[in-house]
């Protein structure tokens, strides 16, 4: 795939290096030649471009017309929004991924600015911390498909109505599916007959607004 990464900070460089190892063609853009120069181009698939990703000419030079994905990951939310809008509007890039630096700006990171997927590190970190400490609560780890699907997690507390039941016996909402059960550090691939234990970490993929039904099935009434 042809991927453009705008922003050669530590995040952008890491992404470029990792993605290039998978064989993708990467163009890494930054206004700083020094930043671009720091990238480790072992794979030989990374092309550095010194320029402002907020300019149509720079994106054109980066091959935006043929790019499959653009990741706007600078440390500046305004730049990420503008880069995304230009990528979608002027070049029709199919998948636009953007980084949210300040969670107060997260509300703008959607189709209104040409963004397909936004990633907010503070948000993710909070969710992961919640996941680590919250036993007996439903934690939303990740939103997918423009927010239409979500990956949720519950660590079953002692009083959970799900304990001792097989997955097929749980009153799970129709638009959800258990995708993994983590038990004692191992991943148990869930089948309809898998019986749940206390302290199991259950990962559920759900579409639609099913939080309360999931809560009822796995946490019980408070």
């Amino acid at each position, binding site marked *: 795939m042809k991927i453009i990464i705008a922003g050669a900070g530590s995040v952008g460089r890491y992404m470029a290096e990792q993605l290039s190892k998978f064989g993708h063609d990467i163009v890494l853009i930054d206004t700083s030649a020094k930043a671009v120069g720091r990238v480790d181009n072992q794979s030989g698939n990374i092309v550095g471009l010194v320029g402002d990703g907020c300019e149509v000419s720079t994106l054109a030079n980066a091959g935006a*017309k*043929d790019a499959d994905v653009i990741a706007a990951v600078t440390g500046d939310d305004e730049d990420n929004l503008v880069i995304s809008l230009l990528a979608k509007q002027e070049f029709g890039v199919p998948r636009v991924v953007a980084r949210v630096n300040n969670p107060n700006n997260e509300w703008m990171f959607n189709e209104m600015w040409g963004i397909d997927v936004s990633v907010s590190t503070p948000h993710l970190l909070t969710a992961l911390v919640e996941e680590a400490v919250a036993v007996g609560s439903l934690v939303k780890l990740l939103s997918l498909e423009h927010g239409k699907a979500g990956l949720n997690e519950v660590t079953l507390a002692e009083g959970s109505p799900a304990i001792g039941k097989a997955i097929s016996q749980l009153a799970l909402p129709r638009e959800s599916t258990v995708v993994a059960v983590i038990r004692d550090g191992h991943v148990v691939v869930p089948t309809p007959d898998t019986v749940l234990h206390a302290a199991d970490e259950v990962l559920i993929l759900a579409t639609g607004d099913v939080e309360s039904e999931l809560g009822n099935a796995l946490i019980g009434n408070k």
Partner: protein
Amino acid sequence: MFGRKKSASAPEVPSVVGVNISEAPRRERTTIVGKVVRMQSKPAHGLPTMVVSIGDETGTCIATWTGRRTIGAITLGRRIAITGVGTDASGILTFVNPEYQLLI
């Protein structure tokens, strides 16, 4: 004293040339000439979005304007030309915030 001139020398509006919707390339700056066949206002994330379906004899495409509910004189039946970079966003040729020209 001099008599009012009726702008005989003013330029004529050049006729707009577009490609057929069925033959329109993707991800290239393109002009489509057609008629507004459907208008929708689709709020997204609490903000207004205007979705206009434009048709010519060969097919239909969509022009989306973000952050607006209406644009003056873009109404059903209006002849219009739009210029932008089209994609197959929702399975149909779609333009986001294109330039447009109202035609008579």
